[in-house]
């Protein structure tokens, strides 16, 4: 491979290494090299958000990031959301609120929602709408997605209240 470069990254906590062309897109590395096909491609121009993943805790559109840019860094994808067969609250809420129909945008939409909630644990409806406006959904008209995100926030708040405060917090 001309100018190929060896890269290594952690995806959902596991190490992946490969020899790649510098032009290989991160989304192709995830889907083709790592065979993690939960991340989807919708537009190739970073408008639709179907390819959203987290790179060192920040959401990125993996169709416009090169795999080499993720060398040595940590990626988080939809496949990392549930642990030991237990769904993440955002997954539960998407299911409970019928926030997905065809499911193609859903992985990216959940990751953008999580990122929004990590910055704004108690958002208003308007803030949720703005927060997920980098992700397109053609099935739902967004209402059930907005409801799902608001409900995760509400559930999170209740959890916070229940949890005894530790000294550090």
């Amino acid at each position, binding site marked *: 491979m001309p100018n190929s470069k060896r890269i290594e990254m952690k995806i959902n906590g596991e190490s992946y290494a490969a020899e790649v062309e510098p032009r290989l897109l991160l989304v192709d590395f995830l889907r083709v090299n790592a065979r993690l096909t939960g991340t989807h491609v919708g537009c190739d121009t970073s408008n639709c958000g179907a390819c959203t993943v987290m790179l060192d805790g920040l959401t990125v559109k993996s169709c416009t990031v090169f795999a080499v840019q993720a060398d040595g860094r940590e990626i988080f994808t939809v496949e990392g959301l549930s642990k030991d067969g237990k769904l993440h609250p955002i997954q539960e809420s998407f*299911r409970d609120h019928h926030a997905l129909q065809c499911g193609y945008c859903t992985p990216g939409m959940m990751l953008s929602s999580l990122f929004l909630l990590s910055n704004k644990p108690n958002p208003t409806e308007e803030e949720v709408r703005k927060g997920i406006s980098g992700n397109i959904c053609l099935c739902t008209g967004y209402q059930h997605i907005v409801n799902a995100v608001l409900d995760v926030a509400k559930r999170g708040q209740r959890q916070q209240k229940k949890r005894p405060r530790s000294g550090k917090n």
Partner: protein
Amino acid sequence: MSKVGNRGVIGQPIKRKEDQRLITGKGIFVDDIVLPEMLHASFVRSPYGHAYVKRIDASRALGLPGVVDVVTGEEFAKFVRPQKAHSGLDSPTARALEDYGIAVKKAIYHGEAVAAVVALDKYTAKDAVELVEVDYDPLPPLVDAEESMSDGAVKIHDGTPTNVVWHKTYNYGDVDKAFSKADLIVKSRLYFDRFMAAPLETYVIIASFDRGQEVMTVYCNSAHPGRDVFLVAGALNLSPNRVRLICQDNGGSFGNKNNIYPYTALIGYLAMKTGRPVKWVMDRNEHLLASGHGNEMIYYGEIAVKKDGTILGIKARLIADEGSELRSEPRGAMVWIRQLTTFYRFRHLRMEVNAVLTNKCPTGSMRAYGKVQHCFLIESLIEKAARQLRLDPAEIRFKNFILPKEMPYKNPAGNIYDGGDYPGCLRRTLEMVGYEDWRKKQQKLRREGKCLGIGIAMAMESQGGNLAPLWKKGHKSSGSVGSAMIRIDADGNISASVDSMSMGHSHQTTTAQIVADVLSVSPDDVDVFAGFDSWITAFGERYSGSYASRFSTVHHGAIFGAAKRMREKILRHGAFLLGSAVNKVELVQDGKVRVKGTKKSAGLKEVASNAWLNTGVLPKDLEAGLVVHYVYKAPLKPLESAELGKGNFSLTYAYGGAAAVVEVDPGTGMVKLLKIVLVDDPGRCINPMVCEGQVHGQIGHQVGAALYERLLYDKTDGRLLTSTFKDYLLPTAADFPTLETAIMETPSLFSPLGARGMAEGGGVPQIAVINAVRDALSPLGIEIDSSHIEPEEILRRIQERTDR
């Protein structure tokens, strides 16, 4: 296992079976499939709207390491038979069309494929596309349908006499007499803008040819796989039973993926030629250029009314811009003609239809196909008549509605409406939006110089279509069949399939609900195949697919019919096992067979095991095993007259009402959607949660059509100007207020479960939004004639008024 509770699960908002895999990234979309030795294809596409292909030099591309082959349109044309879908149309141009799905001598729209590259990987294939040198001889493109139909226009398909592919006038009642009695005749030239369904997943096809068995296996995300089996078989000279077409998870269609078939044949040929599986993933730019667009129309409409708002008749001349090939068209126009009177009681109309080719992407199915265009025409004419008569837009509609007590109602074209409460739907819409309050607010805001608009609209949408008589001479009726299979294995596990795959529709869930209801089990106990496989699942010939909102009519009928037959089988085997007569046993909780009035019973597993494995003891007249394949046909009568276009063309006529409130900023032309309400009547909900989601989807798509999504061609060079999501704008969550929707359930008088199709809704939100913009701008004397409006256009119109 959670039990939702046996009988009575129809109508319950149970959670979806589809979700677990989709929220964990375990769905299997076509691009997720990798076959051994698979190659990757990519297309070279015309940068011109209209140009002869003079020469293709693939030598540089073939020299690139990793490139396996380059196939030109001319080569395809030698081995792939063209689609001649329109031999039944009474038109020399339509009959002459040969659609190869790729340019052979001439490229006739921007983005049309001219050659295909096959390579070891996707990146190399894309590189090689850039290295294929094509010499073009450009011609002036025809992007205006009226120009294209003029006598002197260049012919888009060489050797055809005209670019008009279909022309017909339909007369119902006595329209001239009706117009002679009018107090007012309102005329309008209206325009329905070109947009499309742009699902996030583009077209993806994998074709694999087994040279030993001569079987073509195609994995694709078609929405109409039954038809595609036959089209691909015909194109590649295979018998249809040797084409195995498989669809699984599908990233949305909204009609768009009905138009995938020309590519399926091309990729199939590449697999045959190379002897290896070939994958093709369309990119977004290609999808916007060359998948399938929605119908674009120009109308010259006239409505005759009395002073009190009574509608007497409508006349319209329609010019349907079909793009460069006929794919689904002109079915859209054929459908809309039948329902032009929609909810209203007038009986006189004349429709002249002209289907015209232009140098644009072929049009095809799209959500509310054919219906949104006709509803836009009639609702626009009514809106304008109301304004001129100084009547409230709600009042004029109430004045003309067909009433519930008149159901079933036969419209002038012979369509028989299957029930409904049209005035009730509009009343509910007005209440939900707070119509009176907004009107008061509007008066106050207008005094402050603000442009607030309130728009209402009603739209109708037919399901279970019966167009064959218009399409194919000698066919009395067709199109209205659905097919379902149920199998219960020897352990009592229930599996079902239906020839309608979910593309977000939730058919796995709702199918399980219907089966569970009939078999007295939990939906959790019914496994439903996630897609379609022409070798394995229910297959209803060329009709199999998810289009025209058929699920609620013919597929409900198929599933319900199959489940009832299975119930009979279970009862017969149960009765035999229990040593009882069939009429003395009943099906109770968990699919158990019980002798009536006793505690004597046999579980489903026991019955199934006996039916499959203990066959030696079964009596002669008791068929072994538990398998049912049922084909449902809609109870539609042959047409009264195919020639005159009279007869009932659909089993059900779904409808909805919408209201929108917008504020237009006269300084920027921006339209802010403040409120949107939609009331939909699907007759009977199998799953209300799913129904609500589908109705929300209607709003999402059609608000986009009104305010954001537009396919705009450059008039001089025929290039599509909106060819990425940077220019073809889709609405985001931030563009909507909280959606407010309601479901009315006025059962259909004719469908198997009382349900009507939903999720298409005739495009009612789009029309309501446009009517709201019209209302907002009416004090300025500005008329909006198009189905899509953008800020710069509004600003230009305001500027014109102030300059005057």
